[in-house]
């Protein structure tokens, strides 16, 4: 079942540097939430705290709470590996494993982690995940070819298939379309609309039309200035953010009068 995320007073650090200050958001299950804001405002950093990927970076740490259906992800006995199995992630740059075929890339979450399943189960997972990522028809004839041989848009959908193959409850997407052409972008946006039926989705995007098209709620992050931490400026229904934002900074940003 898709889960609810509640972030309470989260501060995100790189070493001593405070990257995001005092952010709180509540994300309902089976919704799409978009994070928008200028480069360097901490929206990707904030996203990575939602599945404990932030601490992979040396010096990365947080204070505050991230609750997944009420359970604190940063609790002392929580295993980050289990968190990441529950909260999947798709990255800005498509990153299929270069040593693996398309088939193996999809089940990489099981194969690398050492989970054994029968060939039939794996076949089912591969077909279901690739169908889920709208890639099945394009690659079903060449599942044993290297994943790195696909086009950029196909690689990104392969990465989405890989992420949903392990059946997470939340899917985080960090600018998944920023390197893609408009047609591939449309394919992924359609996909997000379909995935919403099964997953709670959080997407970081620089493309405001995209945020307006795909998301139910939008969070706007901004920097007070150079060297200042990023802050969550406004978080509301997408329609309200784009038509009648309550903050001046939000209005300036979405209307292009920023800075």
């Amino acid at each position, binding site marked *: 079942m898709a889960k609810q995320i509640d972030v309470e007073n989260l501060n995100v650090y790189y070493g001593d540097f405070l990257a995001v200050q005092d952010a709180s958001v509540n994300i309902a299950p089976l919704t799409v939430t978009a994070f928008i804001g200028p480069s360097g405002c901490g929206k990707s950093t904030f996203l990575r705290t939602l599945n404990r990927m932030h601490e992979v970076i040396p010096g990365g740490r947080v204070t505050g709470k991230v609750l997944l259906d009420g359970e604190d992800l940063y609790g002392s006995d929580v295993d980050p590996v289990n968190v990441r199995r529950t909260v999947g992630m798709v990255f800005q740059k498509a990153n299929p494993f270069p040593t693996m075929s398309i088939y193996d890339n999809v089940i990489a*979450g099981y194969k690398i982690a050492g989970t054994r399943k029968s060939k039939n189960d794996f076949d089912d997972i591969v077909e279901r995940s690739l169908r889920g990522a709208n890639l099945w028809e394009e690659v079903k004839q060449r599942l044993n070819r290297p994943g790195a041989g696909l086009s950029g848009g196909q690689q990104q959908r392969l990465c989405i298939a*890989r992420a949903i193959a*392990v059946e997470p409850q939340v899917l985080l997407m960090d600018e998944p379309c920023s390197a893609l052409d408009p047609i591939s972008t449309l394919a992924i946006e359609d996909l997000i609309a379909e995935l919403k039926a099964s997953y709670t989705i959080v997407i970081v995007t620089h493309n405001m039309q995209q945020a307006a098209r795909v998301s139910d709620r939008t969070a706007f992050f901004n920097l007070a200035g150079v060297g200042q931490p990023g802050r969550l400026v406004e978080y509301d229904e997408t329609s309200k953010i784009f038509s009648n934002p309550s903050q001046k900074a939000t209005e300036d940003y979405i209307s292009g009068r920023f800075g």
Partner: protein
Amino acid sequence: MTSLAAGSRPTRTQPSELVGARLPRWAPVAAAVAGVVLALALKAVLGWTGWLTAFFSAALLFVVVLTGWSFRVEGRRRAKDRLASTLIYSSFVAALVPLVLILGYIVVKGLPAFNADFFTHSMNGVGSRAGGGLYAAFIGTLEQVAIAAIIALPIGLFTAIYLVEYGKGGFARAVTFFVDVMTGVPSIVAGLFVYTFLLLGTGLRPFGAAGSIALAILMLPVVVRSSEEMLKLVPRELRDASYALGVPKWRTIVKVVLPTALSGLITSALLAIARVAGETAPLILLVGYAAKINNNPFHGDQATLPMFVWDQLGKRTGNASDFGEARAWGAALTLVLLVLLLNVGARLLARLARPKTR
């Protein structure tokens, strides 16, 4: 030739500013000839004896003539370009000449010694007469280098994994520092170290594996350094992708990082082996030399290819002979071929292990 829709080209009435004056294509050749002629003239006028001065004068004059000519005709920028290109090409040739001379000389001197007996017989009872071969030395080198690789490759690879994936802070910096220091340790010092602790310390007689330990010490920094570079080349995105799938770190290293870097790791391993295959100094102390075949690297003196060369030239016994010298060159050629084979093997294996995109 395909031609697009015909548009009339503008006829040029005055020289374009896009075209600059160029020297003719034969200019470098002409400059070289001029340099040689001038140098010969200087040699005659100034009465130089020998050819070395004339040779270097010719080279210098060639550079001066070509650069000066280019400066007059083509201008400052192109003259600088000519000067830099000439220096780069001559450095390349200067680096290549000794290499080609050495290889050519070894092939010419070593090839006559090659025959079936040479590779299947030892020097037992042959002395300074004809016949005999490097079988014993070949076995010794193979065994000792293999044992050295078995010791050094895992330690080196694990150290590299530690430095890239886990190491941060003072300890990792210290490891890196000592690895760098080890790179500069002279091979005889490594030999002396093992000699003191293993042979003097226990009263053992020299044996093959003692040499392997010294070779392993020499291999280790090479393996660590090159493996580290290969592991660093694995993009962070791949590690992130694996972590984000809920894969523990150690499985990410085993299943994602190492396979992705495999091609480079194989290359670095084989190059490190090739690096020590011809090592001599520590073997003098630790392995000694035996004319007869000794297949056991853990007991008794063993022959090795570098020591074989040394022995056959008469440097060990004081008995030099023409047959011995021919065998020494044959062994030198064998050693070069062995290293060449390792290098070629490294490239082939690396190509096979490289991630494919089709």
